[in-house]
Each structure stands twice: as C-alpha cells, then as structure tokens.
C-alpha cells in the first residue's frame, strides 16, 4: 500500500496543489506498467498484456479525471515540465520516503507482486476513520477522500455567498468517447460530477473496501470489472477471479486460466537510462527517439488540459508511436550488459537537449 506525505488540505489553493500531486501520481504508475507490458512479446502472453493494458488505460483515465477536476476549479494542470516525470527507480510523487521504490522492470511475477500489487493494494477500511486526525499517513484512497471532503466543504461555503468553486470553462473539459465511455470521462462542472469523478478513480483503483468488483456508476448490472489490485493478483494466481458463493469471501481465483510463457519476455536490463548508453550506439539513438516521443506526448497532454482538448488525438497517436519505439529498443542489445536488451527510460528531453558528444559532432559536421 502506498502511503502519501501528509498534506494540509484547506482552501481551494490547497486542493489545486493536491490535484496536481494526484495528476503526477496517476501518471507515475504508467511508465512502470507500460515497461512491463512492452516486454511481453508474442501472443502467448496476450491475456496478461491485455490485463496490464486495461489498467494503464484506467490510469490514463484517472489522470484525465484529475485534470478535468483541476480545470473545473480554475486550476491549470502542469504536465510539460521535467519535474513532472519521476526518476526511476524511486519513490512515486507525493509518497513518503520510507515507502515503495518503483523501477522500470521487465515483466515478472515478482514485479507484479512486489511492486504493482503494492502500489494498488486496497487500503485497510479502518484508515478512513482516522482521516480527521493530524499527521496520519494518507493512503491514495484516503487522499482522494480528503480532496472530496474538502471540495464538498468549500463548495458549501461558496454557495452560502452565492458563489461556486467550479469556475472553470466547460470548453476546457476533456471528453473522449472513442477511448473513454462518457460514463467514465465527462465534464466536471459541479460538486456532483466532481464526486462522481473521484469515486471512479478510487473504485477502479482499489475497489470498494469489501468488494473487488467495480460496477460502473448508474449501471450496477452492466459490466463487472475488477479493481487494479485484483487484476494484478489474477496474473500472479494464473487464474481469473470469479464470483464463487462457496468461497468464504464470495469470490475465488478459480476462473479462466491466465497463461504465462516466461520465454516470451524481452530480456531487458532493469531501469534503463538514456545517458548510460554510449552516444555512438543504436540503443542511444532509439532511446533518444523514445524519449522525444514521450516528451512530445507529455507536451500534447499539457495542451490537451490547458485549453486545447482536441490535442488528445495527437496524444493518442504518440501513444502508439511510443510503443513502436519501445519495441525497437527491446530488440536492440544493451551495449553495457551483454545478453540483455535496451529498454524505454521515460525521460523528459527536448530536441535542444544535445549531449556533449552530439554537440561535438555537430560542431565538426561538414
């Protein structure tokens, strides 16, 4: 379970700051999940890849909801800065120093169990009751609950003077039905839509405290989808989680088999860094292209959530491009570690960030 640094959540400014942390945090899980997913090669591991891909898609949804929420209360998400990207391996943004170290690792049962399931571990329901107390470590769920509580309070106060905290422009709100059904991603314009958005983030991430199955809002009977923690656990158990009245909790890992072929995993050296690769290697070149694509993706998301929602289409194109460059890296030998492949490093670069050697090369360029 991730534990967040204690923050004071009083006033609109504090909620805006908290939402910026939430956006960074939602984003920070994507590179580790994607890296593991990219290393799954071949059709043999397609089931697992789809499970991880579905979680990545929801983390993107959560990032989008958090951005919509921040825009709704007049804030401005900041996504296009080097500080937005965490260093891997490292702590996830906003988490306490003692908490989990997350790296960019190839897929393995260990990384799912020791890292991904820890990130997504549902909170102990008891923690909710301590929310009001000072200096109590926050779980992600509690953090969002605190934001929700504060929003309700602030909006109530505002209403008393005939005002609202939801001062953002409707035109800045992102909806994107091609990827996110409108029940999941919708304009946030008032306290009801704000609460609905936060509930989706919390429920998809952690499930409710008693039930791993998430039902979409307003449609309790339509689709039953597992919270992230349980989707990862399905992978480690090798079987789908199904409702099972005979089991003590009412569900068990006794569904469809989830095959895993360890030979169809790219042998990536963990925690790749672009500048670890010598400049005159293919690995460096592809790493630079990958990172430039990744940076372009962050730039386009920044524009998406700062007044140009139609930019999401460009961002989606970059998502595909990112995957292609990751696959090229994973087919390129790591020049520093014989027998291993290079991998994606998710670093913020710009075309102008030339290395010393590149500058030298350009200077002598005929």
């Amino acid at each position, binding site marked *: 379970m991730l534990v967040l640094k204690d923050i004071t959540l009083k006033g609109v400014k504090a909620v805006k700051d908290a939402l910026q942390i939430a956006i960074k945090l939602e984003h920070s899980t994507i590179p580790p999940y994607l890296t593991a997913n990219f290393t799954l090669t071949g059709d043999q591991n397609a089931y697992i890849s789809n499970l991880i891909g579905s979680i990545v898609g929801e983390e993107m949804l959560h990032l989008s909801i958090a951005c919509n929420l921040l825009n709704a209360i007049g804030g401005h998400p900041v996504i296009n800065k080097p500080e937005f990207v965490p260093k891997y391996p490292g702590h996830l943004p906003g988490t306490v120093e003692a908490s989990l170290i997350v790296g960019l690792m190839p897929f393995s049962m260990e990384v799912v169990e020791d890292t991904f399931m820890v990130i997504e571990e549902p909170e102990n329901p008891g923690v909710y009751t301590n929310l009001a107390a000072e200096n109590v470590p926050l779980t992600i769920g509690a953090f969002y609950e605190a934001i929700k509580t504060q929003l309700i309070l602030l909006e109530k106060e505002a209403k008393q003077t005939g005002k609202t905290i939801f001062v953002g422009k409707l035109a800045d709100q992102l909806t994107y039905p091609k990827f996110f059904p409108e029940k999941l991603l919708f304009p946030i314009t008032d306290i009801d839509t704000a609460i609905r958005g936060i509930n989706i983030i919390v429920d998809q991430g952690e499930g409710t405290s008693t039930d791993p199955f998430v039902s979409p809002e307003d449609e309790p009977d339509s689709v039953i989808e597992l919270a992230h923690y349980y989707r990862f656990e399905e992978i480690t158990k090798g079987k789908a989680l199904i409702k099972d009245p005979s089991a003590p909790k009412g569900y068990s890992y006794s569904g469809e088999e989830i095959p895993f072929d360890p030979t169809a995993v790219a042998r990536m050296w963990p925690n790749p860094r672009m500048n670890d690769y010598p400049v005159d290697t293919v690995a460096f*070149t592809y790493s630079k292209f990958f990172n430039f694509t990744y940076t372009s993706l962050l730039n386009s998301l920044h524009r998406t959530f700062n007044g140009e929602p139609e930019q999401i289409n460009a961002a989606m194109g970059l998502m595909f491009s990112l995957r292609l460059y990751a696959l090229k890296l994973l087919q390129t030998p790591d020049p520093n570690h014989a027998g291993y492949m290079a991998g994606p490093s998710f670093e913020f670069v710009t075309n102008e960030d030339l290395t010393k050697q590149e500058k030298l090369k350009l200077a002598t*360029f005929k």
Partner: protein
Amino acid sequence: MSYLHSPRLVFSGQFQADPSTVNNDPTHFDNTTFQPNYQDYGKGQNNGWWNPDGTGNWRLIGCQVVSITYKDGSNTNDPSIDPIIGLSLTDTDSRVAGKIVDLDSQQQMVSELWGVIVRLVSGDTNLFIGDYQTAAFTNIWMTRSPALRGDSCAAAIYQSVIKNLKWDLGKFNSRYLNELHEVSPEQLSIQFTVDRFNMTHDDPQFSLGRIAGSIGPYFEGEPLHWLTGRQLFPVPNPKYNYAVALLDEQLKTLIIDMGNAFQFDEKGDLLSGKNLIVAVKTDNPSKTEYIYFGKIDNSSPGWYAQTAGIVTFRLTEEILTLLKSHPLAIFDNNPTFDFPELAFQEKTSYVRADQFVTRLNAGETFEVSLTATYLGKPLPGATINLVQSTSAFDPTPPVVGTPENAITFPPSAKTDEYGNASISVQASDPGNPREYIDGQIYGIVYKLEKQNYTDLNPSDFVSLMVYSSVPESTIQHPDWERDIQPIMQQYANLYPLMSKGIFNLADKDVVHNNAEILSFVFGKELTDPNYMPATRDLSAGKQRMILRYLETILSGQQAKTSVIFKRL
C-alpha cells in the same frame, strides 16, 4: 520572393527518414505469394530490403541556424550580432513525426513529406511554427557521394512553403527575424538538400542523413516547389548536378544555389566543384565570348554546412546589365585557367510544373501548373507540349502506364502574359491492370515547343497515381472476406511494425475490437501525420468502404462501459 531572396537563413544538421521497405518490391503486394521472410532485413526479392520495420517517420534532427542574410544583403554567422545564429530548427514536439511516403512501389523517386511541422526554437518559445506543405523531392542523383554505397551515395532536394505560420518574437531581439516577419508574415519558402543517408540498420546513425538548406520569404502566386530563376544544367558529367541562381537586380547580386550540385568524398568533404569560375556569355563569338566575374570560394572545410552551398556575388553595373539579357555559365577551375572547361550552362528557355506528384480517383481532375521562363523571367506566348511517359517507373512487373486512356489531357498549351499555363488532367477508372496493386501509375513529360525531350532535366516529370474504382454497391455493403480482408492483409504484410507491434489488421477480431480507433485513423485528413495508412495509397472508394464497414461493426456493438483501447 523565395528561399534565395533576402532576408534568408541557412540551416544545417541531420534528418531522419524511416520508411518501411517491404513495399519497395512491387511483387510483395501480392497476398497470394507473400512469404514471411519478405519482412526480414536483407536485399533481394525474397527479403524486406533495408528497413522492413520502418515507422514512416521523417524529422529534422539537430538542425541549427548557421548564417543569415539581412534584407540589405549583408550577412553574418556570429551569434553576438544576431541571436538567431545557433538556434534549433526542428519539427513537432507535441504530435507524431511527419511521414515520408513514396507515391508508389513503381515510382520511388518522388518521395513526399506529409504532416511535417517546422519550428524555430529558443528555449520554450517557438519563434515561428508552421506546417510544411506536402512536397516531393526532385533532382535526385546517385553519384553525389561516390565513395558511399546504396542510397547513401544519392542526394535530392525538397522545395516548399511553411504555411499557417505563428510567430512569437515578443522578447526575442533579432533584427533578422523582425525583417523576415515584416517581409513575409504569412508563409515562408523553404528548400533543402538531403544526402549521405545511412541505410545500415545496426549502425547508430541508421536512418539519419545530412541536411542543409535555406528559408526565405514567399509571396502568394509564385511557384511553391521551384524557383523561377536562372536554371543551371550541368554539362553531362557525373561530377555535377542541377543548380539554380537568382539575379537580384535591386541588391545587384547574383545568388547561386549549388547545394545539390557538387560531389562529396567519403568523409563528407567537398570533392567536385572547388573554386569554379562564374561567367556571363556575351554575343561576341571570339575568344572573349565569356566574361569571367567571380570564383566560387568553397575550399575551406565546413563550407557546405555553413552555406548550404549558396554563394553570392556582388555585381558591377556592367555584369548586372549583361546578365539581364545573357546566359550564365560556370567553368571548371584549373591552375592556369588556360583552357577553361564548361561545367554548367544556363538553360535559357525553361518550363517547369509546380506540383508534380498527385493521387487521383476516377472523375477527379488535376491541374498541372506550368510556368515558362527565359533567363529567369516569365516567357509569355510559349507553346508547351505534353505527352505520356513511363520512363521514370520501375521496377516492373507489373505493367505500368496502361491503359493509357485512364488519363486524358490536352497535348499542348500556351503560356499567358505571366508565363503560366494550366493543364487539366482528367482521370477515369484504369480498371485493375496491376492486379495485386491498386490502380495504375502514369507519367507526363512536358517541354517547350522548340526543345527536344532528350534535352530536359529527367526529374521534370509529372507522376500520377490513378486508383481503381470500387462499385458503389460494394462500398455500401462490404464483406469482410471478399472486400476488407484482402486490403488489410496487404497492409499487415507490408508494414510489419504496425501489424506485429499494434494491430494485426488481417485479423477480423482485431479489426472489430478496435473499430473505434480504426475508423478514427482511417477517416483522418491525408495531411494528418496520424492518417492511416501512412503510405497514403488508399483510394477514396476503398476508404469509404472501410469506414462504412467499421461503422456497421460499431453500430452492432453495445455501448462500452470500460476503457475501450487496451493495446497499450
């Protein structure tokens, strides 16, 4: 006004071209004979050539502004005089890269750039940013760098405009940029030479090459893709290639663009064309027929990267007057210069088509915009002849240019007072003469009435792709096996990076499960870098049919309640 007019800037650096090459062999389009090893690296019909995993991306890499020429003709390469020197000229930072696209497997010598953005960057600021109007390369020659192998030895030029410009010069104090913005705020003319392209897929420089070029003002109504200047034809010799010059009467200068004209050695140093002598040809038939007035001073290392091959001569009144009415000539240099040997001579009367690559569906018309010039000035009342030709197309089979009657156009036209003539080429259904490749490829050569077709620059050629028609009933009621799968199978075969990495389009389930995203990318504008297929070789009929098919799939699906796309 053009990239050679002032105020202009010179940039140099690298470019990336990453086309997929499985489709370099026309027979690979045949689904019935396709083999998996056609997707492997390697030469020859049984392999996928040098880049089967290509992304199609084209981009500017590490390009910098190296020198500028102000409106008054003065110039500098010193950043302390103008802060623009050293800035990055780059492409997009918030969408996918532009694409490099062949017109057809049988016409790979006019590759176009689609969806490229050009930005001049200072820190976080785009001093200017705009869209590169789609253009094809021309004047390709295979002996540019004779010591290199494969396409690495080749060079070609691109000329186009940057449009939809947005400027942000607020805090940036550059006299040069202020002048450029004042002279040409709407569009800019851009031209560059690409060469020394690396085709070795395990080399760190793979898919990168050298680029050097120029940006200058553009005025509405001028050709977009060539300069109506003084056309310099090389005297037949593998050492030299086509060049162009501009006589700026106001500034009394002659500006010659030798960017794609000379050879380079193994290391990238200038090999041919050192210290050539520039002359004007007079009417005097004696020994003094040529008056020499300048030397191309290009022997210092780094000359090409600093100048992009553009050289400027200040002219005396006498030479200026002579040049207005007499042809330019360039001579080889030798120690004594006793027996000067002609290297380039001016093609005094000249005609060129502006846009020279197009894709047509039956019923569509393409207007070929031709301009005739004499010594770089409009040539009114000139007769232009046009005929079909397939000389530029290879390899074969399948057959090219048949049936001939799928394109029709008048055999001649006369230029107006501005030297312009427009020819309408009408396309009809060619049927399916190539069987496994859609449509047919056609070519048109053109010349001034008094010229011979053999005297022309072979790159001055119009290439047209005419697609096979699809019956409306099929478009409205497509069947997976019969109509859609064969198209998708071909894409899956020819673009393995896409089919293995993201979507195997040949798989019905994959297409059905991703109908939202597919209908989105198949429905995009051709100029969008996310347009699918990246090769832009889908007919309007097939595009409508695929969209119709996906629409039917989507309308039969229940509204989704979870995240739709999971192949991340």
